[in-house]
């Protein structure tokens, strides 16, 4: 599903138009997102992930945002195309 969206529209064509959000009710601190996209996530003292800043994905990091989302075991990451 995700791949279709990316291939159809191409995230590279829409720099800086993604926003991410980590659902705190779902995140269990696997930290896969932090490992795959360290620029986009911060961990709190318990190791749970939060989007960095307001969640805006800087241009050029779109693929990392999608990758983090696709590897979250708890499906806690939303990637919103604005």
């Amino acid at each position: 599903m995700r791949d279709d969206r990316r291939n159809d529209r191409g995230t590279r064509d829409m720099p800086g138009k993604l926003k991410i959000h980590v659902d705190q009710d779902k995140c269990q601190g696997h930290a896969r997102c932090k490992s795959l996209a360290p620029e986009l996530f911060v961990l709190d003292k318990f190791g749970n992930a939060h989007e960095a800043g307001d969640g805006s994905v800087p241009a050029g990091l779109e693929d990392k945002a999608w990758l983090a989302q696709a590897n979250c075991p708890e499906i806690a990451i939303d990637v919103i195309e604005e």
Partner: protein
Amino acid sequence: MSDHAPVTDWVHDFDHTDPRWTENPFPIWDELRAECPVVHTKRFLGCYLPTTYEAVKQVAYDTEHFSSRRVIVRDVRPEITSSAPPITSDPPEHKPAKQLLLPPFTPDATKKLEPRVRAICNELIDEFIADGKCDAAARYSKHIPVRAIAHMLGIPEKDGDLFIKWIHEILELGIKDDDILMQAVHEMTEYFAGQIEQRRRHPTEDLISTLMNARDKNGQPLSDKHVQGSLRLLLIAGIDTTWSAIGSSLWHLAKTPEDRHRLVAEPELLPTAIEEFLRAYSPVTMAREVVKETVISGCPVKPGNMVLLSFPAANRDPAVFPDADKVVIDRKENRHAAFGLGIHRCIGSNLARMEMTVAIEQWLKRIPDFRLDPAGQVTWSEGTVRGPRQLPMLFKKAA
């Protein structure tokens, strides 16, 4: 010690201690998954096995119908006398118990241990590299996590053999023999009581002192029983699990030259490969006890039964993972559940990943070319944690 009859009908009479499961569980899981998302056995006083990722996930997320008060499927179900919070805790007790332990196990915190782990790996390799052969389980993977956790707890690394003995007795022999299990728990309790007593007189800055100094939400220190339970958990959960994961990864690389060559040539691929080894050879199978009747993936489950919660089987479900039976070391999307799903996500997952990465990295650096010794035999552990216990390897002697 009770011996189990060999399994002839896996769908209605599965047994995760059967030698065939121990040797090669993957075709068994495929057979069961094709049959039903949840199968049942009368063994172990009644036990279900969810076979799909979806069913495993449903159970892991459902703390109302499935309790963690028992997390190992065994022949007997004696009264619960010793707990190991937070793994054996349910809500609402679970969260505060887990939060106490989380800060020392974040990626940044475990990163501080990395130099020690790398040194441990090198010390171990030094001992056998000149021989051109070794048992990579007995002489390498087995010793890395136990020394690392000893280092974190602030206890002598040389006590590692003692810990390994207790773990074998609790997780393997204890499935069928209650006396051995109780004796091992007793010995561990005595050992840690001594460690706690020492720290009362001479406080330290290790994980044991962290637990002793922790305060609950009412500002009260944890009971000795709680501290003991958590220490027991860290020791049991932190050792043969990662030892198994390192061993399985080396086993795979020994018999798959193309993956080995690729990781030597592209070391930056290692973290992705480690995730794939975790998926394909997940070591840990947990358990729950059914406490309220419910339905999982269309299958009714009844109280009084256990649930064998096979994250390893979930990770082989082709409905979630394309080419689930293949090891794809550059798999891009990998939502594997090797560390569990939901509130009981393994507290040591960051530590385990660091240990695995360092252990494989150091091995490949110093022993880039190796293969299974055809004269030897690979053997696997039985029951709750699966990994190689004998892993004979041949390689070029170091110059």
